[in-house]
């Protein structure tokens, strides 16, 4: 490497690392940059149209995943805001059925415009079904992020109630987008 770069010793580098290696992760830092032309209709910006199901059943993460609970099964996907940010999704890598995840684990990866984006599971549980249609047609996520473009279904665990209470309601999620 060039002489003119200021080279420091490995010990100095260790010091810098120990300073920047994260101990805690402030959640407020997780926001995506705002969309320059966010639709005025707030409902639309989250992927809900007039014909959409009951909004109150949806809960959100600040990393733009949604979960809808039906009995002891949660259906999970990404929000319309997320798909708009990502652009055309060309590949969707889903977990195997029966994989167990803890809340916050990376459960899927989607690829768009040469970027591989990790997706984080909003709740702990075992995968009981994955949306196989996305393997052949990942663009369904762009077309219908909160309905046909769902990613996985998980069977909830006994800690589900506590975990769900930590998620964002639709109103709170929309506030994070501003």
């Amino acid at each position, binding site marked *: *490497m*060039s002489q*003119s*770069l*200021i*080279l*420091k010793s*490995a010990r*100095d*580098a*260790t010091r*810098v*690392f120990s300073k*920047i*290696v*994260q101990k805690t*992760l*402030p959640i407020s*830092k*997780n*926001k*995506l*940059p705002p969309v320059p032309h966010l639709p005025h209709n707030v409902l639309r910006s989250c992927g809900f149209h007039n014909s959409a199901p009951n909004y109150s059943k949806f809960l959100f993460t*600040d*990393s733009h995943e949604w979960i809808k609970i039906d009995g002891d099964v949660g259906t999970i996907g990404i929000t319309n805001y997320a798909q708009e940010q990502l*652009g055309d999704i*060309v*590949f969707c*890598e889903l977990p195997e059925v029966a994989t167990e995840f803890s809340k916050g684990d*990376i459960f899927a*990866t989607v*690829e*768009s*415009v*040469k*970027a*591989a*984006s*990790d997706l*984080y599971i909003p709740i702990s549980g075992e995968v009981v079904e994955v949306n196989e249609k996305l*393997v*052949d047609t990942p663009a369904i996520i762009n077309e219908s992020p909160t309905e046909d473009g769902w990613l996985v279904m998980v069977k909830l665990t006994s800690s589900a109630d506590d975990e769900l209470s930590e998620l964002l309601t639709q109103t709170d999620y929309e506030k994070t987008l501003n």
Partner: protein
Amino acid sequence: MCARGLLRNSASNYFKSPARRKSTKKCIVYTTKATDPYQNLAFEDWMYEKVDFSSSNCLFIWRNEPSVIIGRHQNPWKECPVTDLLRREIHICRRRSGGGAVYHDLGNINFTFFSDRSSYDRCSNLRVIVAALQQLSPNLDVAINKRDDIILNDRHKISGSSSKLGRRSTYHHCTMLLDANKTQVIKTLSAKIDITCKATSSVRSSVLNLVDADNHLTFDLICNKVVDIYQRKHASSEVYEISTNDEKLLPGVGKYREELSSWEWIFGKTPEFSLKREFLNEALGKILIQLHVKKGFIENVEIIPGLDEMVAITTFLQTRMVGCRFSSQDLTHLLSSLVPPLDQKLYRSISDNILSFLQ
């Protein structure tokens, strides 16, 4: 993302903007003498997972010995002549970022820009590089296209980009062809195998080395200028040379390297695919062999047409080949060790054709 269409390299675009839009963050620049691609990719992953970029951005400058680096969701057999590369000891690596396959050697410079999610901006990173090139060689006609490639003279790609995005951290890395072996670029990125799959495809581009346009450009000159412009964009900066396999500095980085260099990651992570091959048999006419490969292992073998002679061979091969790794070594070993209680000549011609999938 970059604006649509070509952004011309006018002074207003490239000279001024990097310096003008100064970040309040500090930056840390890492360089390394390590040229092991798995080790350098492991360093990127370590940084992505372990480091908080909320108060500092990082730039990592690195080079690899001859390797083909495929994107996260690609099929190595579709992108490159796998058996040939392994024989010639050219590494095959699967990176964690998206996008297509690229060839690296010491004539190619890699830049990785780490940032938190809110500062992720590929175009701004590329402008640092373009500004450096413009300052070093004012007559160079370079521009960023809508795929975030840097192109020379309107049509030749000299740099390709891809990225990895998490909820907190991101990295954007890009290549820069300075003086790479162009024959190898073409040879190592051409596979002749007929594969049906859903894996991410590469976009073919005509490539050129920067030295072809200006033979005064060197690795040191470019790196220093890029570092200089990158530093000026930040409130303060530090530059370090590091060993990307330093376990004391980067605890656990060895595990990342181990995973990235494993067969299970490089080949086993390939999205499901099928291959077919047709050949002519003197006695039976056209024969079609189809293989289905899942997670790198053979999941199904079909031989068409299902004539009486064929059914026995198909069943024989199916029971033995299913579950075998789709690798030249494993398949050659398996097929040559089998003693089929069948028409030997027909069996050989079928097994030779199966092996030729991997040539």
